[in-house]
């Protein structure tokens, strides 16, 4: 029983972390256009660095999520916190790591 409730808890959090379909569309659009403005439409890099899986491979999730949310001081990377939640940033990172942004 304990196991079941744990399982339930895990699935509910996973569910809570997944943005609604509408938000996913908005976030994907933002990734293409707003992120793409500096990182390139194909995300291989522009003024900003490449966001392709191999470029992100050695960087931990929390570091990248906080970069998305808080920006990076001393660079042109702005904080996206006003426009997305922690879960949504994590979801976007998943898309980048899986290279399924198209």
């Amino acid at each position, binding site marked *: 029983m304990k196991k079941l409730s744990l399982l339930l808890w895990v699935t509910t959090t996973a569910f809570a972390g997944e943005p609604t379909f509408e938000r996913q569309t908005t976030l994907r659009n933002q990734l293409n256009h*707003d992120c793409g403005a500096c990182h390139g439409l194909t995300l291989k890099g522009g003024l900003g660095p490449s966001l392709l899986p191999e470029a992100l491979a050695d960087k931990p999730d929390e570091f990248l999520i906080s970069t998305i949310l808080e920006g990076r001081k001393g660079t042109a990377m702005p904080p996206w916190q006003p426009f997305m939640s922690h879960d949504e940033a994590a979801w976007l990172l998943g898309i980048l790591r899986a290279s399924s942004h198209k």
Partner: protein
Amino acid sequence: MKKTLALLALLLSFNALADLRATGDLGIVIEREDGNALIINTTEHKRLAKIEKLGDLSHASVVFSRDQRYAYIFGRDGGLSKIDMLKDSIDKRIIQAGNSIGGAISQDGKLIAVSNYTPGGIKVFSSDTLELVADIPSSYGDGLRSKVVGLVDAPGQRFVFSLFDAGEIWVTDLTNTKTPVIKKFPNIGKQPYDGLITPDGHFYIAGLFGEPGLALLDLWNVDSGVKRILSDYGKDDEKLPVYKMPHLEGWAIAGNYVFAPAIGQHKVLVIDKNTWELHDTITVVGQPVFVMARPDARQIWVNFAFPDNHQLQIIDVKDLSLRKTLTPGKAVLHMEFTPRGEQVWVAVRDDNQVVVYDTETLQEITRLPAKQPNGIFFSSRAHKIGL
């Protein structure tokens, strides 16, 4: 038989007349995601043709041959496409680098230069054949190559550009393409992100992202070096986040004033062109991206970075006041004035439309469909220095 021939000749000449097309009032609208270019007629507000398969056209830019027949489109993926606006076709197309940002056409119209991020540098091609005639790597430090930004043509068959990573401005003279003469200006400031040349070809200005101010080079006196201007402006203020880098092309020169986007502040800077000091600032609704003067310089039109990019603001130069805020639609990315400025075309990406305004009444005239348009370029650019 003679009669039939004469009739045939007559018919043929009619046919030829029907096919005639002038190109002085044509333009190119870039469809970002699909990688298409639309050829449009600015007098008739008409789409004439769609040229497909031009690669990654996010952040594409266009220059025109001096006969206004050909449009050269620079893609982000290093693609350089020469479009024939008489035949609605691709005349030539090459992939010249891995990651590029823009280009320019030389004073005599014979050379096309492209600025590249990877591998960093500029490459120069024959505008006729697109064959490589010069390769200038942006080398600096210990074997490094910088991303190149702010490439423009300048009088004297020169190209001027900035090195984002190195903080340098280079002036290259390509009078002899076999032996380009390069003059380098180091230490111009941190992270020049774009550059422009004044419409008279006299001054080159690079905007700095890494520190306050701008770098100014007097092209009449290059030996006097680069001067820093406005370096005190905003240096103690908290910077607002910048969700899209401003563009300096089309920086507005109006009489004694230069209008420029502030960085990290929702303001347009008004700079005195005689002293290069700040004359005034105008508060606007967001981070300005393009700050462009109507050709007669009576109005300045400003668009904005996300999340304020559904708006356009118009400044009246007469008294430096805000005249109106327009809301053309979602994601207003670019605008282009007709040659004498009675109309302006506006690219509204997320609404898949190009909106045409009357600049006097500020009323909408018409809308044309375009899939995610991100750039509008009219053939009248062919005869302007720096465009």
